[in-house]
């Protein structure tokens, strides 16, 4: 015999179920733009990157530079070489990487013409006049683009190219030209001229950017936190870059991948990969699980690696595979102690 009390209970319970499932169903079918939930603390600079970027990254430069881990790395792995490289960059651009830059957001478009597909937006404290003067001193010239001063370094045939090419392979602007502009006070964009001009366009008129790319934003949002992260489309990178066939065939069928790290006393990181389907994800998980088991076996007699190995956590559901890790600073000390030291007095290559 069902009493009124029981009836009310059943109604209340079913109501919770129906309202909950109904709301979930509506959210599932209608969906909400990922940008609507975008973390306010996330970089605004995404607004200046083109929407079709195949790789987007973020680095909290000042925090990482001041971290204990970085100091240990400098001690253990050629701090002098790093200092030289930083000084050389400062002489050429007037930017002190260690103190001037707060954070950098960078993007790479695998579909763009080779050498002109990268853009970085840095926020910090910059001396515009000094930077411009230094770059001009090294052969750069200033152009006007929609009211913004564009400091351009052409690739061939001018002194700037020679100077910048001497700086080292990684910093060398490849093709066809490298530009730098101050989008707004404390915000500098540098990279290929075409992309820097596009950033100026986006700043002036808005439009489709990385910040309006829901797919990209939802993947960035999924990483949440950390002082360095990278999100990218491995399938796009693979299709646009000419990888050797033997390498391309070995790569797992991953669409999106992500990395996020928290650098402080050590490195806590998580690598995520989104496989093409559930089956590929399961296969990938099995492969990683096998490697983890092997790593555990190999390091049983090495206590300095134990914390790191124990921290390796495989996770993920459906098509997502994730691997979390925690690298303590002591591990870098241990690695530093086994690395061969350069002979005293031998010049180190700037990096």
């Amino acid at each position: 015999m069902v009493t009124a009390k029981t009836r009310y209970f059943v109604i209340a319970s079913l109501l919770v179920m129906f309202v909950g499932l109904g709301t979930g169903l509506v959210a599932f079918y209608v969906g909400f733009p990922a940008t609507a939930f975008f973390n306010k603390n996330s970089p605004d600079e995404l607004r200046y990157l083109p929407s079709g970027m195949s790789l987007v990254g973020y680095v909290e430069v000042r925090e990482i530079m001041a971290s204990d881990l970085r100091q240990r790395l400098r001690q253990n792995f050629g701090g002098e070489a790093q200092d030289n490289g930083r000084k050389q960059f400062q002489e050429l651009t007037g930017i002190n990487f260690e103190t001037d830059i707060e954070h950098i957001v960078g993007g790479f478009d695998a579909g763009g013409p080779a050498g002109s597909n990268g853009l970085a937006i840095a926020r910090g404290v910059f001396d515009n006049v000094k930077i411009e003067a230094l770059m001009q001193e090294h052969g750069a010239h200033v152009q006007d683009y929609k009211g913004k001063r564009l400091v351009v370094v052409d690739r061939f045939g001018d002194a700037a190219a020679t100077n910048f090419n001497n700086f080292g392979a990684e910093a060398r602007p490849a093709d066809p030209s490298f530009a730098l502009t101050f989008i707004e006070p404390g915000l500098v964009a540098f990279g290929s001229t075409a992309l820097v001009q596009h950033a100026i366009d986006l700043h002036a008129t808005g439009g489709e950017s990385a910040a309006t790319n829901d797919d990209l934003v939802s993947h960035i949002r999924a990483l949440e936190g950390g002082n360095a992260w990278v999100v990218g489309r491995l399938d796009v990178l693979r299709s646009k870059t000419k990888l050797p066939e033997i390498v391309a065939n070995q790569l797992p069928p991953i669409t999106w991948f992500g990395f996020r790290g928290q650098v402080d006393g050590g490195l806590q990181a998580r690598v995520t990969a989104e496989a093409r389907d559930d089956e590929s994800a399961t296969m990938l998980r099995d492969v990683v699980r096998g490697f983890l088991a092997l790593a555990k076996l190999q390091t049983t007699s090495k206590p300095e690696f134990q914390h790191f190995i124990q921290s390796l956590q495989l996770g993920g559901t459906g098509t997502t595979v994730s691997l979390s890790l925690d690298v303590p600073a002591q591990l870098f000390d241990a690695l530093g102690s086994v690395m061969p030291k350069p002979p005293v007095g031998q010049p180190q290559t700037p990096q």
Partner: protein
Amino acid sequence: MTKPGVLASAVRVFDFSFGQMLWSRRSVFLALLVGAPMAIAVAVRLVAMTTGLPVINGAGLSGPTLFGILIWLLFVRFIVPVLGVFYGTSLIADEVDDKTITYLFTRPVPRAAVLLGKYFSYLACVVLLVLPSVVVVYFLIVPIGGHIGEAFPSLLADLGMLLAGLASYGALFAFVGAQLKRPLIVGLVFAFGWESTVLLIPGYLKRLSVAYYLQALVPHAMPQDASAISALLQVFQEFPSVMSSLICLTAITVGALWLAGRAVETREYVLEQ
């Protein structure tokens, strides 16, 4: 006068035992069990609103991840087996202990219908409490860094999995309750001794557990820690397919109910004076 059929009789038994079961003292325990995840979810929500969720191994703990952990650790590994043991074993055992089984068995209904009606009451009771609790936890936790629409299919899978688990464990322990004299002890040993152990042993032994099939239906990754048990689970982890899990759980439920019905029909219950 013809005896009514088993199903019709079971409905009559369900009718009076549902309210009785819902408002029994045991329901306080049930309310605490399903209230705990909701309290945890409220606490997590408050923490997320004030300081944000903690970062573990460099990974920001997002709402959907935390929801998956709660489903695994609280619901799959604890609440569902516990409810199955406490309610399932008591379906007949309580009537024996209270010496009221005679009144039920003297009614002109098949004895198996008494068990079946009580089993359906148990199922309605726990389903109406556990599933809304999961929905509330979902809406409290998943929006923290997640999206309710994106994770909705996994919620449906969770609800289906919990329903299957409650039905299977309930049926199995209803049989244990109908067959054995000290069903609660046997049930607890099975749920938290046997099931936990066989999952760690390589080979076919794990197929003799409900958890093996139930865990294959969980749409979230199994949480891992640095313990030896977690490492063993990771190494010997082997999940049957969803379809075979569903078939096996259905077989366990139907088989256990049939056996329980047979036990009730044939067993002589001696009431202690």
